[in-house]
């Protein structure tokens, strides 16, 4: 796809994604915070779930997306794949940060401790560092093509590592602390909680897709600043 067609065609999408995402997030969050009854064991603190679960979910999806884009870039040298990686990495850093922070805040009232070393928390923490590595490596390399390649390699190696990390951490932590703590009582989640949660997860996806797309548009504009169509566009509007 040519950058120009992408740039012109994507504006409508950004608006739509933003609109649906923000509406959905407002609906799910208000529903979750005000209209769902308190949970039997956790009281009101469980409501953090409506932020925490979508953020944690999305972090992994964004990383998988970056790794797929990495493969696409290395195999076909698709420039848009690189643009996606560049736009998605900071967003991923923020969502993992959000997942970690909300997890910490949730952990204190629920388990009496800010941080529990278990497979999921460690995976998200490592994901945070992988996103950070993506950004740091890209900034360190001056030539865009080389940066794109380096970041792709890193993304792929990281993606291969995630299941290994999960497996090893799970094994290691069950060894050290017999499964007295589990993060979510999945069986305990009733439909009352599930519907607003699903709405929030879906809207979060849509909203973040809009953010990444908007970021890609900015990058396309910056990378093609010397071309005539960009100059025409910036001049006319």
């Amino acid at each position: 796809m040519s950058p120009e067609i992408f740039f012109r065609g994507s504006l409508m999408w950004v608006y739509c994604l933003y609109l649906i995402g923000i509406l959905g997030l407002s609906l799910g969050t208000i529903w979750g915070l005000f209209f769902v009854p308190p949970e039997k064991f956790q009281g009101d603190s469980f409501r953090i779930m409506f932020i925490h679960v979508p953020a944690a979910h999305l972090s992994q999806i964004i990383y998988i997306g970056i790794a797929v884009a990495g493969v696409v870039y290395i195999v076909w040298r698709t420039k848009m794949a690189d643009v996606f990686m560049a736009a998605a990495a900071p967003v991923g850093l923020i969502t993992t940060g959000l997942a970690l922070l909300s997890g910490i805040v949730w952990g204190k009232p629920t388990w009496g401790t800010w941080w529990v070393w278990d497979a999921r928390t460690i995976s998200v923490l490592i994901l945070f560092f992988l996103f950070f590595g993506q950004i740091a490596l890209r900034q360190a390399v001056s030539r865009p093509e080389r940066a794109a390649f380096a970041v792709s390699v890193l993304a792929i190696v990281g993606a291969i590592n995630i299941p290994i990390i999960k497996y090893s951490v799970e094994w290691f932590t069950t060894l050290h602390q017999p499964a007295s703590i589990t993060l979510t009582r999945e069986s305990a989640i009733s439909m009352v909680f599930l519907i607003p949660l699903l709405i929030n997860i879906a809207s979060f996806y849509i909203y973040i897709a809009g953010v990444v797309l908007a970021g890609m548009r900015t990058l396309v504009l910056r990378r093609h600043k010397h071309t005539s169509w960009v100059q025409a566009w910036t001049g006319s509007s």
Partner: protein
Amino acid sequence: MRAEKLPNSLITAHEIYYETSGRELFSGLNATVRSGELVEVYGPNGSGKTTLLRILAGLHRPDSGQVIRHANSTGFLSHRVGLARLLTVRENIRWSIALSRAHFAEARVLSVLKQFELTSCAQSLVRDLSAGQVKRSALAALVLSDHQLWLLDEPSGSLDAEGEELLCQTVSSHCQAGGAAIVATHTSIALTANRRIDLGST
């Protein structure tokens, strides 16, 4: 578009386009070098001589276009001469020969060392040599590696007049023997080039 192979061509560059930090360095650059040819790449600092040589060596990737190397083997010499500072001249030469899968012949090594006036310092570490001696050692290693195509980036740097003459002789005898060389310079040395690529002062 496909670059066609010409008879005897050792390297073909086809429609090379390359830009650095938004600045176009080459656009639509075509070149073919056949065996026996000596090509001089000429231009002031910043005109892209080094970049062009690195593209031809396969160390840089052009943004578009392609480089096809038909030569059996390519030798590349830049300001980073490619000698380990903690090895002796001899050890370096030995390794270069092994790397290029050339044949190691003691008599030939000795005669080349003598030709480059390195006999006395063959056993000393590269770290302890003067800049000119280092350059001579690098040239000796290049000669002994039996590469078909030579890519030389500013080979005359830190050589004295005598060394420069030696360099010119070496390059032209290499080309006469069926090899080819692409040499980048900003000063004119007494090379009898068949052709010249002038990168001008863009």
